[in-house]
């Protein structure tokens, strides 16, 4: 079973449940891949020895009636993990070891999984290319020197390169879906409040949402089932019954109505993307769905709105990193103010500083109404657009991103062009609704491209079903030469 690491999570779970393979073997195979990786830089922290120990423990007394029995999982380094360094991709937390476990990772461990390592990401999840990480940029397994997307770039890269059978990321403006699109994998941003935020290093509290990143839609359903659930420690968590997404997964989508928003056809979008979008419509039609043209008129305001709301919240959320209590503290300065200034100047990278400055500016007196309040109003309009559309359709089909993976350094000094990457994903976060990106094909360079399906609040099951149906017909195949092992 040398290529077991290529298998889907669902297949591996099934092999373990059938006792055809042991957790330790699975774990060692992934660790072998991790050790062979010389260039991706997708891991910040390895937990190889501990993972093997956990695997052995599992094998001694295998508990098989769980969702993720004996599965090693590497997670984005934004999830606090007890006793394991949690950096958020920042120098500021380079020495931070939490003594608590995030609710989401705890949920995974309760379902039989254990930690394989902590994955690289943009600093405090701020970025679309994984180039803002203090721990260096991550490469996309698809091609050398291309970015994996961000901010969950390490997660997408590690998953694609078979360094972890599945992973989790967080999505504030597209940080799960865009890297999924760039790497030919599946990424789901759940309804805001479906997955607890407790123990996840916060970026923008009203937008942050954890979600699964997987090789298949089936895996995605399984992972969401393990992650989701009410958490009384998160006041924005939705109190609802758990759903069996994987058990109820079906490709029967007959009669469902799929909306195509005209506003998502943007200038300068590569032809291939248009082609894939057309292909997506065709496939869903063949599966029995009805295609309906819709309009989301406020879409064009989503990006500017996002870049007011998210930095505003971030500027406040990141105030706690001041060198007083934990994390990095500069040894320069002779008083409190100087200590703050030096700590935050040395501890944060440029993109984080940029967003703190934007956020501080839009919240400051005299500008608050013109920016923050206005952005909140537009946010409501964007949400209303979706609400209106969902009176007519069950889901909305769009491209996930306006381009495929780009070269490292290509957009690093052009923040606007970098921000434009999230143009199709941010409206979903602003509206708090779920969306999934699935691989839909490749461009001329053979770089993957994703399609995004957007659903109603808490309508994850339907989204997964549509994605499941589309996935079967698209039949996307990764074609990787594993250059990073050379």
């Amino acid at each position, binding site marked *: 079973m040398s290529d077991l690491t290529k298998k889907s999570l669902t297949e591996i779970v099934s092999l373990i449940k059938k006792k055809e393979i042991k957790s330790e073997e699975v774990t060692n195979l992934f660790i072998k891949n991790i050790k062979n990786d010389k260039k991706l830089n997708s891991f910040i922290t390895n937990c190889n020895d501990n993972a093997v120990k956990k695997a052995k423990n599992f094998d001694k007394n295998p508990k098989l009636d769980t969702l993720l029995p004996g599965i090693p999982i590497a997670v984005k380094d934004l999830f*606090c993990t007890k006793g394991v360094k949690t950096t958020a991709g920042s120098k500021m937390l380079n020495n931070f070891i*939490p003594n608590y476990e995030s609710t989401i990772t705890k949920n995974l461990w309760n379902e039989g999984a254990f930690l394989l390592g902590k994955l690289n990401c943009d600093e405090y999840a701020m970025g679309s290319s994984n180039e803002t990480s203090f721990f260096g940029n991550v490469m996309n397994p698809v091609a050398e020197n291309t970015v994996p997307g961000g901010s969950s770039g390490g997660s997408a890269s590690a998953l694609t390169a078979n360094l972890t059978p599945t992973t989790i990321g967080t999505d504030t403006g597209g940080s799960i879906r865009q890297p999924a699109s760039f790497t030919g994998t599946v990424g789901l941003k759940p309804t805001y409040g479906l997955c607890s935020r407790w123990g996840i290093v916060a970026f923008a509290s009203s937008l942050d949402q954890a979600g699964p990143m997987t090789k298949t839609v089936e895996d995605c359903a399984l992972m969401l089932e393990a992650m989701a659930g009410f958490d009384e*420690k*998160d006041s*924005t968590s939705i109190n609802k019954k758990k759903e069996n997404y994987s058990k109820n997964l079906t490709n029967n989508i007959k009669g469902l109505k799929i909306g195509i928003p005209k506003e998502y056809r943007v200038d300068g979008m590569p032809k291939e993307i248009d082609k894939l979008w057309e292909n997506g419509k065709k496939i869903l039609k063949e599966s029995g769905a009805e295609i309906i043209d819709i309009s989301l008129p406020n879409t064009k305001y989503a990006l500017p709105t996002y870049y007011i709301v998210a930095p505003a919240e971030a*500027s406040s959320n990141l105030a*706690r990193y*001041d060198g*007083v209590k934990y994390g990095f503290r500069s040894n320069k300065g002779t008083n409190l103010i100087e200590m703050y200034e030096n700590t935050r100047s040395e501890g944060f990278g440029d993109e984080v500083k940029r967003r703190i400055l934007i956020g501080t500016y839009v*919240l400051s007196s005299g500008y608050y109404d013109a920016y923050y309040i206005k952005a909140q109003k537009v946010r409501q309009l964007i949400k209303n657009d979706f609400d209106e559309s969902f009176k007519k359709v069950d889901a909305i089909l769009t491209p996930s991103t306006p381009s495929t993976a780009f070269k490292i350094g290509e957009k690093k000094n052009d923040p606007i062009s970098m921000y434009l990457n999230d143009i199709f994903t941010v409206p979903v976060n602003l509206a708090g609704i779920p969306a999934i990106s699935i691989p839909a094909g490749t461009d001329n360079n053979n770089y993957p491209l994703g399609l995004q399906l957007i659903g109603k609040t808490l309508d994850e099951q339907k989204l997964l079903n549509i994605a499941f149906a589309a996935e079967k017909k698209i039949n996307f195949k990764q074609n990787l030469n594993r250059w990073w092992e050379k």
Partner: protein
Amino acid sequence: MTKEKEKYLIDGEKGKWEVVIGLEVHAQISSNSKLFSGSSTKFGAEPNTQVSLVDSAFPGMLPVINEFCVQQAIKTGLGLNAKINSYSVFDRKNYFYADLPQGYQISQYKNPIVGEGKITLDLPNGTKTIGIERLHLEQDAGKSIHDLDPSNTYVDLNRSGVALMEIVSKPDLSSPDEVNAYIKKLRSIMRYLGTCDGNMQEGSLRADVNVSVRKEGNKELGTRCEIKNVNSIKFMQMAIIYEAQRQVELLEAGKSIDQETRLFDTKKNETRSMRSKEDAHDYRYFPDPDLLPLNLNKELIENIKKNLPELPDQKKERFIKDYSLTVYEANVLVSEKEISDYFEEVVKTSDIKLSKNWIMGDLFASLNEKNISISQSLVTAKKMAQLVDAISSGIVSGRTAKEVFEIMIESGEEPNKIIESKGLQQKSDPKELEKIIEKILSDNKDKVEQYKSGKDKLFGFFVGQVMKISSGKANPQLVNQILKDKLKK
């Protein structure tokens, strides 16, 4: 005419000035746990022993509202005759300080939980109503300790996250005495409600004092200064007197007042500038995205309303009606719930007038002298009632009772036991008294003659003689009666 006299005015060089005062009182909510975490709020614990991951703002930690604190705020709002807002919002007030772990304080800015209300003050010349602007919930910060080390500041986060109510008055107060009455009344209401213990030594009650002055009779408000974080009524009064005088002097010298934040130096008895309006913090308030808006349902509010205890104003009315107290007496007796409870327990069994006089007289004097509260006194309500009963049933005279009381306040012994062991019972046996009186009359025949011929004053002499022989234990009423009878014959 008299009204003019009551007014608190500052005599300036160029005329009389009125003082306008508004208070922002920070009252710590009586609650076992903090506003957004389960940490204990007990006073006096070792530094940093009552701190959760939320209080110290660890990455990924989220606040969860303590519903009990919300109920306490509603209760207080109802006690202040205020509007309870069914919709309120928690905002973040952003600023950097070492004892503020989050880098922001969670407070309520545009939408507080409680709106306008009022407090009635009982002043020497009648009542005055002070408007309440609002009451909102917020977290306390930690404590920076600068004097433990010459070059370092220590931070204690035990207080970080403790629930506070900020109660903002309208600028309706116009003298240090009114401020005294206002704080005492507010404190009394909250103590009746059990929503704040009002303990100023422990920092449960502090205030920011806004002071401005204006020429007498002027209706416009002057520019105000805010004196931050004053923690006793005495200091509030001192700060107001100093600050008002300072402002009058500035204005009379033709200068203007800078709107600024000032600190009161208790040692030097002066206020000084902390930061000017230009340097005022921009707190960048915005709704806390970690918390949903607070939506209170009507039943909850109604339920709290139904279960409100009797408040000082209602109790005062009832005391006046039921016990025939004067307004002054009622005010004194309801000022503290403990005192009113004490009074009611005593009069349940004992004579009202005697009880009232003993509590407001000897008992209060002893509390003052010992500087203790009524609940700390060894003379419990039960023992006080026993003493009052002993007087009204003639077992001891008022004078002997004072002797008994002196022993009670030191030892806490029951009055009946003291009376018995010391043999302090009055002689109330008419036959025994008759014998004594007959002897006195026959020993002082000349005086009897003088009395009978019109020298009424000698009656006191005979009473004195009886008391002398009986060592003061003769029942004075009986003595009077028997003496009168005998002297008639």
